[in-house]
Each structure stands twice: as structure tokens, then as C-alpha cells.
């Protein structure tokens, strides 16, 4: 096992170009579990915790550009007011110890369907910035996940940052787990309302081979809000519309039975989460 510790972003990209099989490590919350429990023996490891650029965030053409190495704790503390959906999700990640180390970049890199950051990123139409020695590109997060723990990232690339708009309206996130803290999602759901564009964004976690957007549910609810002029009237959304929204979210999922829960339960729970999250967000919008 070879250990690389680049001190700069360009050095990191050069190492990755030379060793496309190398495993990047940041907070270690995924990679170290695999090493400690002997699930994997990477031949090369690149430690990204020395790369200052990855720990920075700022504005980029109207969007927040957040370095892949910003921890969950910092997201909550520094960006919680601007990214409430991601902040709620971040608060459900592991424990204080994990949030002090874990990063959204790492979550994206692992590309697990259960990654807690993914649903809010999907709901808010975030972009993932990938970089290599030959340049960088920005991939919509909804095109980023290609399969279980597989993503659009090439072997010579590293995740530089993700880009996301400051919340354009209320955002919510809910995650079902079988204990009251420190739990991997049985399933999760995120919603982002955008009153300006009159859009409803969604993201489903841990209920399919990848994180999933419930596109039909989004369109359905946008239609309801538009048809009944609710964005302007700001009145309650009817029970039947909420129920249908929940059903469409559940239908968008492609869950399986595993140790954490059954497929049938995941669909059932997603319908509940979708109704609740939408209601909380809508009530906030109406205030």
C-alpha cells in the first residue's frame, strides 16, 4: 500500500493522473472502515486533507461553490442558514466525531445510494465539479450517480467541489433509521421548494441502486400548485394531492430487501416522508 500526501490541488491531480487506481481519502469514514475490516486493500492512497483548496467555499457565478473537503460540521455551522436541507441531512450523518471528519466530497466519491448528502443535492439541482490534470467539468448531480457505488467520475479525476444555489425556498430532509441516532438510512427523502421558479425538487436516498429524483412526483406537485394557483394563494394543499405525491415518490423508488429493511417498507415509508416533508416545507413557505 502506497501512501501519497499531496500538499496542493495540482499535486493531487498529478498523482491521480499517474495512479488512476489510487483511492482518495479525506475524512476516512468510508475508506478506513474498508481498510480496518479488511474488505479492501487499495494499492495507492491519496490523502486529500492537506489540500487547502478543498476546504474552502465561496460564491461562483451566483452559486455556492463548496470544496469537497468541507466537513459536515462546517456545513452545519457555516452554511446551515443558506442550505437548510443539506444542513438537516448533515445533522443526521453519524455522530459529532463523524461530522467533524466526513465530507460531502467523500459522500459523492463513495456514491453509495445511502449517502445522506445526496437527496438534498438532488432536490436542489446541485452540480459536481470534477477535475483532472486535463481540466475540470461540472456534472449535474442527477447525472452523477450511474450505479451502486458508481459515478460519472473517471479514474484520473478527483472531486473538487459541489455547486449549489442558496435555498430559494423551504427545504426539508427526513431519514428513516431503526434507532434514534447514528444510523444508516433505511430510506431518506429531501425536498426543496423554489417559489421564484415555482419548482419542487426531490431526492430519494437508500431506496434504489442510486440516489433518485422523483421526477413524476415533482411534476405532479408543480402541476397542482400551478393549477390551483397555490404559489400565490398560499393555502393548504389538499390531502388527495399530498397522498398522490407520496405515492409517486414511492413509485419512483427502486428498493430492495436488505438487512436494514424491506423493499415494501421502504416504499411505504417514502410515501409518508414525502407527504410530511412537503407539508413542513409548504407550511414554511406559506408563513
Amino acid at each position, binding site marked *: 500500500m502506497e501512501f501519497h500526501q499531496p500538499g496542493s490541488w495540482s499535486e493531487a491531480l498529478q498523482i491521480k493522473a499517474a495512479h488512476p487506481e489510487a483511492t482518495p481519502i479525506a475524512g476516512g469514514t468510508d475508506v478506513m*472502515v474498508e481498510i*480496518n*475490516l*479488511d474488505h479492501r486493500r487499495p494499492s495507492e492512497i491519496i490523502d486529500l486533507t492537506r489540500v487547502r483548496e478543498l476546504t474552502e467555499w465561496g460564491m461562483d457565478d451566483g452559486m455556492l461553490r463548496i470544496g469537497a473537503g468541507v466537513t459536515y460540521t462546517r456545513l452545519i455551522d457555516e452554511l446551515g442558514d443558506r442550505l437548510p436541507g443539506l444542513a*438537516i441531512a448533515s*445533522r*443526521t450523518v453519524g455522530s459529532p466525531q463523524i461530522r467533524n471528519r466526513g465530507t460531502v466530497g467523500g459522500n459523492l466519491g463513495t456514491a453509495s445510494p445511502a449517502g445522506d448528502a445526496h437527496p438534498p443535492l438532488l432536490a436542489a439541482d446541485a452540480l459536481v465539479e470534477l477535475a483532472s490534470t486535463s481540466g475540470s467539468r461540472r456534472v449535474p448531480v442527477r447525472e452523477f450517480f450511474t450505479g451502486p457505488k458508481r459515478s460519472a467520475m473517471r479514474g484520473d479525476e478527483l472531486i473538487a467541489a459541489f455547486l449549489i444555489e442558496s435555498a430559494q425556498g423551504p427545504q*426539508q*430532509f*427526513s*431519514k*428513516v*433509521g*431503526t*434507532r*434514534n*441516532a*447514528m*444510523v*444508516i438510512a*433505511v430510506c431518506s427523502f429531501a425536498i426543496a421548494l423554489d417559489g421564484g421558479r415555482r419548482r419542487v425538487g426531490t431526492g430519494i436516498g437508500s431506496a434504489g441502486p442510486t440516489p433518485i429524483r422523483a421526477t413524476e412526483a415533482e411534476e405532479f406537485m408543480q402541476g397542482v400548485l400551478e393549477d390551483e394557483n397555490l404559489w400565490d394563494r398560499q393555502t393548504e394543499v389538499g390531502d388527495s394531492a399530498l397522498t398522490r405525491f407520496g405515492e409517486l415518490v414511492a413509485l419512483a423508488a427502486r428498493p430492495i430487501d436488505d*438487512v*436494514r*429493511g*424491506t423493499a*415494501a*417498507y421502504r416504499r*411505504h*415509508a417514502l410515501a*409518508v*416522508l414525502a407527504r*410530511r416533508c412537503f*407539508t*413542513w416545507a409548504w*407550511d*414554511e413557505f406559506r*408563513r
Partner: protein
Amino acid sequence: MSPRVGESVRRPDGLLKVHGHFPYSSDLHEEGMLWGATVRSPHPHARILSIDAAEARAMQGVHAVLTHEDVPGQMLHGLEIHDQPVLAFEHVRYWGEAVALVAADHPEQARRAAEKVRVEYQVLVPITEAEKALAPDAPRLHPGGNVTRHVKIRHGDPNARADVVVTGEYEIGMQDQAPLGPESGLAIPDGEGGVDLYIATQWLHIDQEQLASVLGLPAEKVRLTMAGIGGAFGAREDLSMQAHACLLALKTGRPVKISYSRPESFVGHVHRHPGRLTYEHGADRDGKLAYVRARILLDGGAYASSSTAVIANASCFAVGPYECSNATIDGIVVYTNNPPCGAMRGFGSVQNCYAHEAQMDKLAAALSMDPVDLRIRNAMKTGSRMITGQVIEGPAPVAELLQRVRAMPVPSIPSPHRGEGQGEGRRQVDLTSLPGGVSNTTHGEGVKRGIGFAVGFKNIGYSEGFNDYSTARVRLSVVDGNPRVEVHTAGAEVGQGLVTVQAQIAGTELGVNDVVVLNADTHVGSAGSSSASRQTYITGGAVKSASEAVCKRVLDLARSELHTERELRVENDAVRGTDGKEVVSLATLLGDAVIEETREFHPRRTHPLDPETGQSDAHMQYAFAAHRAVVDVDTELGLVKVIELATAQDVGKAINPIAVEGQLEGGAAQGLGLAVMEEIQLKDGVIRNASFTDYLLPTILDMPPVRKDILELGDPHSPYGLKGVGEPPTISSGPAIVAAIRAATGRPVTRVPVRPHDLTL
């Protein structure tokens, strides 16, 4: 002042533990030490065709690779039946069974070499369901067949009839003790063919006995010293890595350390038996129990471990702490190709408590009675007869415990408008108080509250005629001008506070302020195991007895030196008259003399169960506890938040009240775990969740406050009147939670742990 019985005394090992200096078994290190690793079976059932270790042996840093051919003594060991191979030969019978061993300079070298040990298997169809092990055409996993033990209890009229009858079938998942300290230890060869093992175990002497047999050595050549124990709960009764480390150390001539990873720990120790329990309760219209019939089928897994004793408990206590003159109980434990099951806190009384308490609630509903009233109507009391025919002596305050938990104040429903949970108040919702916690699944929607009660009991100490005793050596001398008492036993301090209790007892009996409890080892006689809630009683009894003997010698010496016949006692480092005035200081009296006494303490005898009727005075002491649980259930998502547990327990005498409270709280947490989250999930004999990511333990956000009512009713037979404390909290806590979940959801809930989909789909 000397540490006293009845006072909340600080742990003598506390400071070392909080500073990180307490040496646990995984913290040991010795110059030139090698690391051991274990090759494990990837199949739950297979024939071993060949083992080729040549490549592994040739690897860098590797000093030894051992297989069953390298076991010099007996190939089989076991707590009650010698049926488990030290290293598998001919067959593997469970997933993760140890097949070969490696010792290398670095743990990574050992792991890589273990991977290169080529074992050729002929895979066999595993038996992974207990019921299938009983089928006439099932393959026999052991020479004696697949039934490890069938306990029959035939009490009263087998054909009794009743006005009201309820039946039920209940399923209990496989729970793991999950002590945080991994199985680990260090074996050091003595260069003369013997070995010293530093080990975390619940019973040094039974390890020693099994190791001597496996290693083909006399007991005096296998010396064990207790290393710090990171929790036990039954997981450290059987051998895990003990023999393996000794074999490698003797082979290599080097110290060898083995420390399991968490996934390895899940296959490295036994678990709580999963079970299927079928019950029929009959009662008259007034709610008096007329009969109970039950079949209890436990899955013992691949090897017997303590299965034979667990099934006896499950059977003897099958009805719960109720008077019942007619009972027909069949308790059966079988071999399968699942991971072996054995001891865990509660030991057979946990599984049946879920069933008998669910039945009592069902019966109450059928009779339109209050469930606590029904229990009280049938409650056992002093003089009641067990279904084994044994008359309960000593306090049996079942009705009082129930009345006390019922009378405790019920937590009020917190204000943020349950069932609405929206609007302005939303941001004030404390998510940590709601089902789902910070995962933000509800702000009150779908949440319903339920309250449930349960009561349970079990035996303290060994049963069925097993020779239960402990040994204590107590030594009084003068050190630096002050008297000091040293207490030496082989009792395992697993965290429960045995060291504190020993110091308190010696301090109380000898009146000496400086009491030191020596580390446990095999240089003193057996203490028996730290299990069955027995150590305070039995090893405490031995310390009391040895201390009394030392005290008597001190007073005899004083009377003879002082030429007096007057009544004297020892208090505050001096021999005193009945008026408390000092007659002579211990330092002066003793000078250079040392007074040492060793005593065995034997509690009253028990007797084997009659094989056909199960009738016998099989148990020494009974302990009782009752619980009330208040839960909030998100009925739409099936998520549970336990709001509060309340318990009443008779402890006879609280030797160390703060430690007693810790047992009540910690035991209840393990009960909660089995009720709502803890389960080893198996598929075709393979553990699918052998890690703390997917085997979930209760966190501080899952465990509610525990309201406690500790009764000290005094057992006339035991030292200071004490009763065993450790297990009752784990017995009825979970059943109370499940009863509360039933009350909140209206669902039958016949399986634990309760899963979200059980409450919603």
C-alpha cells in the same frame, strides 16, 4: 473509614479506567510478541477435504500456521458437553468456525497469510431452522442427534380445562452481548513447556480446565491471570481465542497476542438463543390461572455451549412469576448450523418472558381485566409453589413490585402539540424527544403513546445440583505502619463492580480502612463464573467467610495478648471494646505477623430436574423485577421512542447502591435493545450484519431515563440478605416495551426485535 456494605462506594479501578491506564486484554504488549490470526470457515456446513498451509507458512513474517493436527491434547472442548473442536477437523458446522491459526510479526502479515491457507471444502446443506433440525430425515450434526436437550415439566393435571383460553406464538431474534472489549489476550510461553495466559474471561478456572485438556498439560502448567474485561454479559463464558493463543505461543516459543475485530467477534462468541415459543393459557372467569401449556424451541446453533442450562431456565420459568397448579412445558434446544448460542444476561428467562407476558396481556383482554390486576391476582409470593414443585422461600414480592411500578408517576406528554406538529410551534420541537430523533421523521404526526407492564424472574446462582462455590483468601498484615487487608479471589470483574463489593465486605467484616483487592488469577481457588447474577452472593459470601475467620483470629490474638475474656471487635484499624474505645491498634497487635485465611463458600444445594416431570428443588434463589414502559410510536413509520422505563426490583440488600442502580439501568438498556433493534440477522447460516453499522446497539438517544424503586427485603439464606441483581433488569424491560408498543399501535406484535415494517405493513 473502611469501605462498608450498604454504602455507595467508588470503584477501586475507576481512576485507572477514566485515565485510560486500565490494562484491558487487548492492551497487552510484550517484547517480541507475535500477532495471531484465525482462518475461518466461509461455509455454515461443509466437510473439510484438505488444508494446505504451505504457501502461508512461507510468507514473510509468518512464524507458524496451525491446524487441528497441531492440537496436542483433546480435540474437543465445551462448557457442558465437549462437542466443539479447538480447530475444526472433518467438518465445519457454522459460518466463521475456526479452522487454522497463523502467528506473524504484524497483524497485517497474519491476516494476509490466513488468506493464503488453502482449505478445500465439500459444501453440505446446512440446517438453519430449529424446526428442521427436529425432522426425522434431518442430517445429524452431532453423534447424539440434533436435540441437545428436551426439558419436560409435568406439573399438576395435564388435562386441566378453563373458562377462558388464549393462545399465541412468539418469535425471539438472536441477540448479541456485544461487549465493547473484543475477545483478546496474550499468551506467554514459560520456556519449560507451560504457558501463562493473560485473558479477559468470566471464569478463569473453567478456562484453565479446558485449556489444560486441549494443550495436554497439567493444570499447573497453564496459569491464567485476569486482564481487564471490556464487558461480558455471557459472551466470555466459552473459550474464544484462549486455546488458539496458547497453541501458537507454545509452538513458536514467543508471546502471542490475539485481538478480534468486531466482525470476528460476532463469530467468536456465542449469542442469545433465538426461539419460537407456542403458548396456551387457561384461566377461570376471575382471572385465576388454570393451566399453562407451552412448547419452547430454542436454536442452539452448531455447538452446545450452555444450551442445556439455558433451556432448563426457559422451561422452569416458562410461566413467569405466577402461581399455576397445572403446567405442561416442553423446552427443546437443538443443534443447527447457525452460530452457536449460549449464555447471555437473563439466560433463558428473557425469551420466555416475552411470551408469558404477552399471554398475560392477552388473557387480561379476553377477561376484560386490567393487565396489572390480572398479574397481581396470580402473583407468586413466599410459599408459592413453582411449576417445578419447588416452594419459594424468602421474599417473592411480585404483587408489590407491580403495584409500585403502576403507582409511579407517568411522564406527561411533552407540550409541542402531538398529532399536529406543524405551524409556528414546529421549530421548537425537540427532535431528540420524538421517534426518529434528529433524523427528522416526525414533528408529532402519527405519534401515539402506549404504556405496558411486565414482570419476570429467574434463578440466582447455578441450578440442578451443579456444585456452586467460590474461594476467597483474605490476608491481614501491617504495611508501612498501617493495617492492610488483601483480598484475593478468582472472581471476574466484568464491570459489574465485584472488586468494590469484595472490598466493602472485607472492610465491613474486618474494620480495616485499607482494603486492596488483588487481581484475579488461578493461584487461588475457583470463584465460579461471573454469571447467573451470582458473584456478590457466592464470591461475596466467600470473602465474608474468610474475613470472619481472619477477624476471629485477630480477636483471639488480642484476647490472648491482653489476657482478657471481654467482648471485642475490630473497627477503624483497631481492636475495640463494645463501647468503641480502642483497646489496641491492629498495627501494634500484629507487628510483623500476618493473618491469612482461605475459605470456600457453598450456598445451599440444589437438585437435578426429574427427566420426565421436571419436578425438583432445582434452584437456590429467585430474583424478581417488574417494569413499566412508556413509549411513543410513530404509527405511520413504525419507529419507536421509549420515553421512560420504570422498574421495581427486590435486591434483598443493596451492598453498593450506586452499583445496583447501574445494574438496573444498564440491564434495562440491553432489554430495550432486544425489544426494538438488536438482532443478528442470518441468511442460510451466514451473519449478514456482523458489524456495529448494522447490528444496532442503543445509543444515549435511545435509552430513556429509568425510574427506580429498589426494595431491600432481605433473604434469610444469603450473606447480608442480598439477592443477585444483574439479570432481572434485562428480563422484563423488553417485554414491557413491547406491551407498550402493542398498546400504542393496537397490533399483536409477536416478534422481537420489533421492526418498523412489523408495525406498518
